[in-house]
């Protein structure tokens, strides 16, 4: 009986897959306005260029997608799915659910010329076990967003060293302004601060070693990061009550001029401007140097497209991935997204000082980190971020927290 059912399902599967030949199923998490518009545009363009292919596009809720993808990759695989670079794709690669697309990266015969050459800088974050598992199409910078007018009013110039940065905080605090706003209710914002402190104190290599589980959390170098963090937390330079607020709610004090800085990703610009800030009073600067001489690596999370290994229409899926890697396509997507293209031949949207600053910073970056919750495995990331939040509320519990994280590290990377 079971066999009959299975063969029925298989027959049905064959029938349905043949009847859908030329259909490309794409699943994305682009439920927010701009990403949705970008994909609408890109799918239309792809269909125009490839009239023999019909795209069936399923949009998932951005948050729900993180769960759904685990399911649909196994049970109802599309031909293309979007996801994130770095360790975040490791569970899927390890479980054999993503297709190896190294051939796309190697082959130089595609329309756009040599992929490896134009996107070399992003190749590392797409590589696991010497193979590439997807194509990146957009990224954005992290750094410090600040109120220019508050800086001017208090005689502060953009800090480039740690001492200047701490001094700026002290001046602002004395003037009754919260130096740095942050909303840590959903935890991840704390990781942005941690990543930068670690990248600047110990450098990119150490940060990668830590997120790959090679160094203990009780290492003196990690302690050094928290020593720096102490310099901000203990005098109360971060927004009080941060644990009660989401990242968006924490924008309000900055809009109202009650807080001056926010360590954030470039996606914060849109809501800040919507709330009334202008290029004239909103600025961006690179996270300042801490240990002199350490090459400056940046935080630049990358979004990617992949082919599930159980996809039915891999031929057209590859065409779509190659299409997504093209300079002109990435240029268009990122114009809509307000983010940066990966392909070096793409032009960046003109007249946006934040994107220009970001591009300039990232082009000169020593290396790029993906963000703590993408570089570290999920379980480590979740415990880590909980620990960061607890530390920011209770800096004197540092030792206990680090010991707990070390315990988690030993379990997770076993």
């Amino acid at each position: 009986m079971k066999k009959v059912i299975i063969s029925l399902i298989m027959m049905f599967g064959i029938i349905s897959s043949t009847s859908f030949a030329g259909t490309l199923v794409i699943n994305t998490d682009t439920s927010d306005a701009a990403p949705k518009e970008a994909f609408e545009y890109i799918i239309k363009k792809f269909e125009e260029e490839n009239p023999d292919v019909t795209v069936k596009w399923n949009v998932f809720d951005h948050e729900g997608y993180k769960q759904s993808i685990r399911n649909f990759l196994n049970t109802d695989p599309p031909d293309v799915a979007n996801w994130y670079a770095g360790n975040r794709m490791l569970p899927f690669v390890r479980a054999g659910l993503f297709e190896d697309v190294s051939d796309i990266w190697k082959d130089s015969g595609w329309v756009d010329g040599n992929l490896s050459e134009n996107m070399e800088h992003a190749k590392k974050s797409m590589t696991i076990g010497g193979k590439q598992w997807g194509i990146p199409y957009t990224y954005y910078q992290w750094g410090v967003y600040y109120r220019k007018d508050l800086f001017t009013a208090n005689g502060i110039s953009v800090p480039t060293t740690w001492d200047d940065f701490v001094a700026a905080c002290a001046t602002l605090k004395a003037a009754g302004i919260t130096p740095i706003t942050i909303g840590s209710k959903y935890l991840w914002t704390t990781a942005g601060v941690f990543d930068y402190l670690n990248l600047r104190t110990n450098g990119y290599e150490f940060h990668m070693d830590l997120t790959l589980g090679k160094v203990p959390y009780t290492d003196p170098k990690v302690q050094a990061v928290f020593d720096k963090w102490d310099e901000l937390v203990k005098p109360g330079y971060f927004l009080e009550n941060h644990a009660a607020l989401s990242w968006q709610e924490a924008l309000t004090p900055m809009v109202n001029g009650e807080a001056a800085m926010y360590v954030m990703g470039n996606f914060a610009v849109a809501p800040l401007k919507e709330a009334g800030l202008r290029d004239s009073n909103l600025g961006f600067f690179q996270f300042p140097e801490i240990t002199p001489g350490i090459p400056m690596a940046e935080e630049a999370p990358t979004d990617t497209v992949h082919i599930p290994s159980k996809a039915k229409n891999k031929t057209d899926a590859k065409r779509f991935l190659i299409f997504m890697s093209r300079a002109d396509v990435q240029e268009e997507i990122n114009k809509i997204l307000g983010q940066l293209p990966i392909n070096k031949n793409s032009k960046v949207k003109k007249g946006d000082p934040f994107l220009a600053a970001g591009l300039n910073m990232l082009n000169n970056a020593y290396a790029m980190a993906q963000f703590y919750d993408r570089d570290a495995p999920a379980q480590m990331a979740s415990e880590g971020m909980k620990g960061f939040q607890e530390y920011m509320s209770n800096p004197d519990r540092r030792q206990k927290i680090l010991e707990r994280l070390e315990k988690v590290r030993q379990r997770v990377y076993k």
Partner: protein
Amino acid sequence: MFPTPIHQRPIVNQYIYKIFLPISLIIWLIPIFGILMTSIRGLGDITAGNMWGTPSEFLLFSNLHDVFTNTPMIKYTLNSFKVTIPTMLGAVALSCMTGFALANYKFRTNLIIFFIFIAGNFVPFQILMIPVRDLTFKIGLYNTITGLVLFHVAFQTGFCTLFMRNFIKALPQELIEAARMDGASEFRIFWKIILPLTRPAIAALCVLIFTFIWNDYFWATVLIQGDHAMPITAGLKSLNGQWITAYHLLSTGSIVAAIPPVIMFFLMQKHFIAGLTLGATKG
């Protein structure tokens, strides 16, 4: 009667009571007033911190319009009905039969089966979560309304059986015995004698199940991902993520989500209370 009826008390006490009654009601309903008041405000009042003062504008309809046109609220509401009503019918139908079987027949495993139904009804959801989710996957019903309904029907059968069995057991046995003497088949007894007598129990169960399932959040998050099948509780939670500080919309949405069970409650209050307290008088 306990306590002493108030009209047998001194006149002063009567007045004090009559003053305290509405005051306590108002205190009790403060949370409800809070959202009602906020649902008619605009964003201006909220950012200005005007929570309890007179609203500067009356914007209930504009808020309702916002909620219904800019969000999948209508879809969520429809989904909730699509989950709730079949569950209600399914669980009541199954439990009429199980309740009848357990109340009416003597067999060795009767009590054991009855207790299994009761125990299952009280089990923490978490111990079912992973296997139920897996099972729903395997039969291809993950992320569908049918998948959610099947689980709800099965789970609610536990509570409904407890309820139905006790109700049927309290019915006069003579009716059934007399019918049996007349040679009526067991199915005929069930269909012609028991079912008509259980009408009040069925009504009570329907109201209760409607409320339970409408308000379910846990299983909706475990078994549903996309907007297409998401019921209103889970939908409201996901909208909460988008609205952030738009408390006026949040309040309006909350009211929309609360209205169906509240209407159901006021219309069917007698049955509702009878259902909830069946065990309070006996058991």
